[in-house]
Every structure is written in structure tokens, then in C-alpha cells.
């Protein structure tokens, strides 16, 4: 009887499907971009190279206007349909992209880029040095750029900060398009990672004529953009995803082996896993709970992200103004247990603020140079706590502020139980939406909060610079020694000396002053179909390169 029931159900569905398929088609044409595109048809074009690759992103593609984009998903798309002067390779080293090479002056302040011959936008217009100048100035200008990323240019380029603040003019910004092929940039201070910066989206070129011709429509649809990267967008819908096609006008298109990349939006991790198993997508990021079941799968892999999650202490808050209390809390939890048993996703316990593998002095990584600046030590934590309580007169009542994401909730519960077991204290957890958490922090209305920072570029400065602004969000930390270390590191031309100052700064921030307690370094686990190769995932900046990806 059960079978009969499901059969008649199927029959009914069939009837409906005929009726509705008809109206579906009409609507498809009317609603344009949101219409389901036949994925099978994609492979129809004469394809001499690899099969289409199907990937997904975990949230909507918010916007593709370079001056507005600030999230990883927009960057995922933009990095593959456009390009900067340099592009990161599989080892995260910058390789010439739209630039052919660069001449760096002896004082390491002036960069003279020479663009490649014959590079052009997807509409046939040549890509010139002026396109870079236009894009960079626009990013600095708060009336045109709204993504909050101007600092990534103005911190380095002479005249940028003044222009952004409205006290200087565009002419005073040291970006010079000498001729169509030559771009000269002067930096405020020697910046060993400047070439890496030019691989980031805010450093991509924009064609002024095209951007102004589109007005406020720029970037809102696939035909309202022009492309300089290995792929062009065939279609794009905020909520459904994007279809990327090989760009025939790209300078290195002979090395682009895949004609079509389908990028879907899937917000549910379990849905993504099912879609992966059903063969609808070629790679999936695993939830912690799915890791153990898939560890023995040959398609399993792990990767890291330059993203450190840490406890931010408010150094002006009641109780936490005492450095011994802060130190005690920093030492009272074992983040290796957290990473191995609770997160279980490729993350690792933090041994400092600067993540594993981030560059140090050019030969060794920062972590190799600085070792462990934080390590659980329960005995010492108890001692410091007792000392702090004595100095304060009584044990402080503590509340931990967190955002309401499942991972952070797990972390907070772990910290709570560690503080209880190791220090014998009850810490309350205050869970807010991330907007509300930010507002409380900005308003100096918190004691300590779990927060995270993802590196914008491969250098410790991307972290260390944050605590020089003395804001409540950064714990009201104000130390002239620390500020001096950072300021001097910015001026230093010798890589080893510069690294040394940053090493000291990390020790001071984490150990001596205990302003932050690093918890874990971000990582992820994934499954990837064995026939797909050449997908390059970066731990920072642009998340992924499709350029060399191939599906056999």
C-alpha cells in the first residue's frame, strides 16, 4: 500500500510538473539572471580542454564592484576574472601577471612596473598604466570606495592617506602613469611585501571609460563589467551563483585549461556535502562533525587560513585592567585540546598571534623565529590569578562577549569550562549577533571578547598594526613602547632588523602586556574529486586561483 501511495504521488507531481514547467519557461525569460541555466549545455561548445568544474561558495556573491567588494566570496570571483600586477603562485609567492617585471630603487621606496605587451580588457581596449592609477585613486577616495579597504593602499603609497582624508589632492599621490606601459609608485616606507599587495583585489586595474559609462550600474551584472583575468563572467546572480568562461583575450590564455567554471551558492554545509557525494560539485569544505567519517577517504585534505581567533581583553575594563588577571586567563586554557577535539577541522592551537607559515625575515617563518609566546600553564595561571585578586582586593566577576556563530559558541563553552576547572571561576557568556557584539566593543562596553582577524597580506604587520590605534575595539591598548616598535619596523629597510622588532612586538602584546590571548589558528578540511587538479587555495588575500585548474 505504501508503494501505491508514493506512485500516485509521483503521478500527481508529474501532472503538476507539465503545467508548471510551461509557466516556468515563460518566467525564465522574464526574470533573466535568476533563471536556472542548463548545466549540461555548458559543455556543448567545442571544448578542446578540460571538463567544466563545479564549485561553490558559502554565501551570496554580494557585489562585484571592486571599490565595494570586501568579502572573500566577491574576491573569489574578482580574482579569477581580473588580475593585478602580480599574481600569487602555488607557493604563495608573487609572480608577474599584468606586469612583466618591476625595478625597485635602492632605497626600496620606488617601484617602476613595466606592463606586458598587448594586454587588453575583454572588450578589446588595451590595459594601460592609467587604468591602475584610476583604480587605486578611486579606492583611496571615500566618495567612490565604500569597502573600507583604502588603508591597504594609503598605508603605503606616498600622499595616499592625505588624499583619502581630504587634506591632499589626487596629484599629490605618488602614482605616476609615465606612459601606457610604465607605472611608477613611491612608497612611504620600505615594504618587503609590496609585490604581494599588488596581487590583491583593491590593486586591480579599472578602465575609467568603461566604469564611468556604466555609472551606478557598474558591476551589477555580467555585462556591466569588463575583464582582465583568466576568465570572464558569462552570468552572475547574487543568490544563485556565477558561470565563468575562459577569457580569450587574456595574455596567458594558453595556460588556462578549463573552459567553464560553475560557481554555486550553498549556505548549508550538509547540503554541500550531499551535492558533492551526488557529483554535483567537485570540492566541499567539511564541517567538524563530518571530518572523522571522511578522514580515510583519499579525496580528503586539509588546508590552513591565516586567521587567528583570539581573546581580546579590554585593558580599561573592571578586573581586566590588572595585567596578572589577564595573564592568568591567557595561560589557563589548553587550545591544543580545543583544536584537536572540538574544532577538529584542520585548525591548530595558537602558539602566538601570528599564524603558522606566515613570513618572518624572508628565510624563516615568523613562528619559527619567535617560537611559542603562549602556552597553557595551569600552575602559573593559578599563581597569577591569586596575585591579581590580591592586587584588586577581590576576585573580579567576568563576562565573555561572543558572536552567535556555532564555532565561536563552541570555543566560548570550552573556555568557560577551562576557566572553571583550572582557575575555579565562573565566567558568564554573553552571546550577541556579530553586529551587536561589534557595537558593544566599539562602545567600550565589554570585558573580554572572542574575535578573529584574517590576514590581508603575508606579513606580521597585518596583525601588529591593529593595536596601534588605541580604540576600545582593540582593548584600549596604549603603549608607547609598542607603538614605537611598530613605527620603527615600518621605517626599517633591513629585513632581519625589521622582523626582530615585530617579534618583540608580538611578545609584548601577547606575553608582557597580555592584551590578547591567541586561541587558535584557522584551518579547514575538505574533499576534492581526484580528477580535479591545479586548484590553488591561498591562506590569505585572494582565496583561490582557478587559472590552472583542470578536470580530467
Amino acid at each position, binding site marked *: 500500500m505504501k508503494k501505491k501511495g508514493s506512485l500516485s504521488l509521483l503521478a500527481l507531481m508529474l501532472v503538476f510538473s507539465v503545467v508548471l514547467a510551461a509557466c516556468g519557461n515563460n518566467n525564465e525569460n522574464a526574470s533573466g539572471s535568476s533563471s*536556472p541555466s542548463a548545466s549540461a549545455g555548458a559543455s556543448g561548445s567545442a571544448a578542446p580542454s578540460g571538463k567544466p568544474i563545479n564549485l561553490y561558495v558559502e554565501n551570496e556573491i554580494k557585489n562585484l564592484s571592486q571599490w565595494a567588494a570586501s568579502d572573500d566570496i566577491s574576491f573569489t570571483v574578482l580574482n579569477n576574472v581580473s588580475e593585478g600586477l602580480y599574481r600569487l603562485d602555488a607557493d604563495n609567492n608573487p609572480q608577474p601577471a599584468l606586469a612583466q617585471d618591476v625595478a625597485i630603487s635602492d632605497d626600496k621606496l620606488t617601484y617602476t612596473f613595466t606592463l606586458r605587451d598587448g594586454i587588453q580588457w575583454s572588450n578589446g581596449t588595451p590595459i594601460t598604466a592609467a587604468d591602475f592609477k584610476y583604480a587605486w585613486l578611486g579606492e583611496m577616495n571615500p566618495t567612490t570606495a*565604500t569597502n573600507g579597504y583604502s588603508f591597504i593602499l594609503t598605508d603605503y603609497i606616498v600622499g595616499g592617506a592625505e588624499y583619502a582624508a581630504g587634506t591632499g589632492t589626487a596629484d599629490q599621490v605618488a602614482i605616476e602613469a609615465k606612459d601606457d606601459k610604465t607605472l611608477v609608485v613611491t612608497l612611504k616606507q620600505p615594504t618587503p611585501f609590496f609585490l604581494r599587495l599588488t596581487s590583491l583585489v583593491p590593486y586591480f586595474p579599472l578602465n575609467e571609460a568603461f566604469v564611468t559609462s556604466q555609472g551606478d*550600474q557598474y558591476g*551589477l551584472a555580467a555585462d556591466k563589467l569588463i575583464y582582465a583575468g583568466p576568465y570572464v563572467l558569462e552570468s552572475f546572480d547574487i543568490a544563485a551563483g556565477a558561470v565563468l568562461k575562459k577569457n580569450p583575450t587574456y595574455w596567458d590564455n594558453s595556460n588556462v585549461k578549463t573552459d567553464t567554471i560553475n560557481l554555486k551558492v550553498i549556505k548549508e554545509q550538509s547540503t554541500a556535502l*550531499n551535492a558533492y557525494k551526488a557529483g554535483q560539485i567537485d570540492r566541499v569544505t567539511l564541517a567538524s562533525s563530518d571530518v572523522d567519517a571522511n578522514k580515510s577517504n583519499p579525496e580528503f585534505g586539509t588546508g590552513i587560513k591565516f586567521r587567528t581567533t583570539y581573546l581580546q581583553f579590554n585593558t580599561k575594563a573592571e578586573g581586566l585592567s590588572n595585567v596578572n588577571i589577564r595573564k592568568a586567563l591567557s595561560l589557563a586554557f589548553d587550545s591544543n585540546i580545543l583544536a584537536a577535539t572540538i574544532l577538529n577541522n584542520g585548525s591548530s592551537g595558537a602558539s602566538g598571534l601570528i599564524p603558522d607559515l606566515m613570513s618572518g625575515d624572508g628565510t624563516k617563518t615568523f613562528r619559527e623565529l619567535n617560537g611559542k609566546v603562549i602556552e597553557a600553564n595551569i600552575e602559573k595561571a593559578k599563581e597569577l590569578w591569586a596575585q591579581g585578586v590580591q592586587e584588586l582586593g577581590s576576585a573580579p566577576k567576568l563576562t565573555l562577549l561572543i558572536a552567535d556563530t556555532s564555532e565561536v559558541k563552541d570555543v566560548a563553552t570550552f573556555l568557560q569550562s577551562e576557566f572553571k576547572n583550572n582557575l575555579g571561576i565562573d565566567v558568564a557568556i554573553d552571546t550577541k549577533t556579530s553586529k551587536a557584539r561589534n557595537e558593544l566593543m566599539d562602545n567600550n562596553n565589554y570585558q573580554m571578547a572572542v574575535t578573529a*582577524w584574517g590576514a590581508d597580506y603575508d606579513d606580521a604587520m597585518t596583525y601588529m598594526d591593529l593595536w596601534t590605534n588605541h580604540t576600545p575595539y582593540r582593548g584600549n591598548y596604549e603603549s608607547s613602547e609598542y607603538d614605537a616598535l611598530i613605527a620603527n619596523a615600518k621605517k626599517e629597510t633591513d629585513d632581519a632588523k625589521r622582523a626582530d622588532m615585530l617579534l618583540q612586538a608580538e611578545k609584548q602584546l601577547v606575553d608582557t602586556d597580555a592584551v590578547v590571548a591567541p586561541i587558535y589558528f584557522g584551518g579547514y578540511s575538505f574533499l576534492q574529486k581526484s580528477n580535479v587538479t591545479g586548484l590553488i587555495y591561498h591562506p590569505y588575500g585572494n582565496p583561490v586561483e582557478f587559472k590552472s585548474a583542470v578536470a580530467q
Partner: protein
Amino acid sequence: MKRYIAKRIVYLVLTLFIITTATFFLMKNLPGTPFDEEKLALLTQDQRDQIYASYGLDKPVIVQYVNYIGNIVQGDLGTSIYYTGQDVKDIIVDRIYPSALVGLQAILLGTVIGLILGVLAAYRHNSGWDYAAMIVSVLGVSIPNFVLAALLQYYIGLKWGILPVAFWESYDSSVLPSVALSFGVIAIIARFVRTEMLEVLQQDYIVTAKAKGLGQMAILSRHAVRNSLIPVITILGPIVVNLLTGSLVIENIFGIPGIGSLFVDSIKTNDYATIMGVTIFYSAFYVVVMLLVDILYSLVDPRIRLGSGRE
């Protein structure tokens, strides 16, 4: 009747105005801003102010409100901040189609099956049919649709490979979410129809019809079912609004680019124009459907005369 409808439309506009006003001021009390605050924190206050100013967020709330109402009257729902520069009207139009298709199919499927089950249960009262139909109905109400969705996705999508697991690619993509959503409708409709049918079947006019020598089928289709439909229409109003405007959970599970997730996301991201746009759209849809339901009554049951009684 005409006067009644005209009056209802005035009320309708008034209702929408109140909803719009209330939502606007409540929304402005949400913590945070529509921007990426961590990035914004790296800018100077002047730069931040300029960004706020470019969206008109520097003005007093009351001025923003007046501007907003002015724009709405001209049919302009504004542009999204989160989806930078996208027209809110376009976003809603793009996102409503998948939600509406899935919702409509769920309603059709649910109503037809629910009707059949309900009629069957009442007609064969206290028989195996009745019990079976009511078990289905209880299950339909008590099992959350996301559980069903997950089961359907796992078995029909993944294990048996009959239909796509997720995404919005072809018509097939809409089948599983529609089925998942239809269970609740089946359950509600079946119960309502059964209860009402049982009552109708006791009525004098049914006895008269039987005495006239009408056949069973004729009695059922001509008298019993038609008279049982009134409560179904009442309940169908809210169901239509609910389902056509999308379900966040179902949309997320099946990766459907629908409007349900848009609404929730817009609130989480403080995307003011989108929150307002979707709220206005939802409420307008709701009040219009309610009006249509009232008009439908008079068509199904001529005894109900709109506007003739005291208002």
C-alpha cells in the same frame, strides 16, 4: 460590493503605512551598521562619515524616514547597501520567482492531496481510511519540514539519484523542496475538510438530496465538498502568503536563491533598504490575499454578502 472593496482598499493602504512606519523606526534601532565594521574601524572618522553620507545615513532618522516615504510613493524602494548598488525592487523580483514556484507547487500538491484525504476520511468515517488519513495528517503537522527535506534530499536525491540534491538549475530542482513543503499543507487541509465534511453530511439538505434519489457521487461533489470548502479558503489565505514568500530553512537546505533567506539575511546585515522592501512586499501581499479571500467567500457561498451588513 464595490463600496465595500473601495473601503477595504483604503484600510489596506493605511495598514501598509503603519507597518512601514513601525518597521522603519524599529529597524533603525538594530545594533551596528550595514557595513563591514572591522574594515571600517581602520578608517578615520572623516572617511567613515563620508561613506555614511553617500548613503544618506548621516541625516537624522526622521529626515531619512520622510525621504524614504517620499521615494516609496514614487515606487522607488531604494538601493541595497549590502549588495552594493543593486536595486531592491530588482532583487525582490529576481528572488521571488523560485520561492513562488516552490510555494505554488506545494500549495497545489498539498491542497489536492489534502482534499482527497479529507473527503475520504469523512466519507468513510471511522474506517481504516479515516485512521490512515488522520495519521498522515498528524505526522504532517508534527514533523518539521526541514526533517522531511533532509530525508528527501538524502534518499531521493543522493541514495537513489532520482532528482537533484540541491541548486536551482532546471525544473527538477523545484520538485523536492515543493514536496517537502507540501506535507504541512496536506495535513492542515485534510483535517479541516474532514471536520467540515462530517458536519455537512449531517445537514438536512444532504438528507433531502438522498431522498431525491441523487447518487452518492453527485451528493458528494455537488453538495458536500462545495459546502466544506469555506473553512479551507479561510485557512488557504495565510498558507498562500506563507509559502509563496519562501521558507528560509527549505531554501537553505536545497540551495534555492529565494526570498525567504533574503529577508533573514537583510536583517542580519542591517541592509536597511532591503529590510524595508521585503517587509513592504510581504505585508502588501498579505493584505491583498486577505482581501481576495473575503471576495472568494461570496463566490463560494452566495449566502455571504459582502458589505451588506453592519461594518
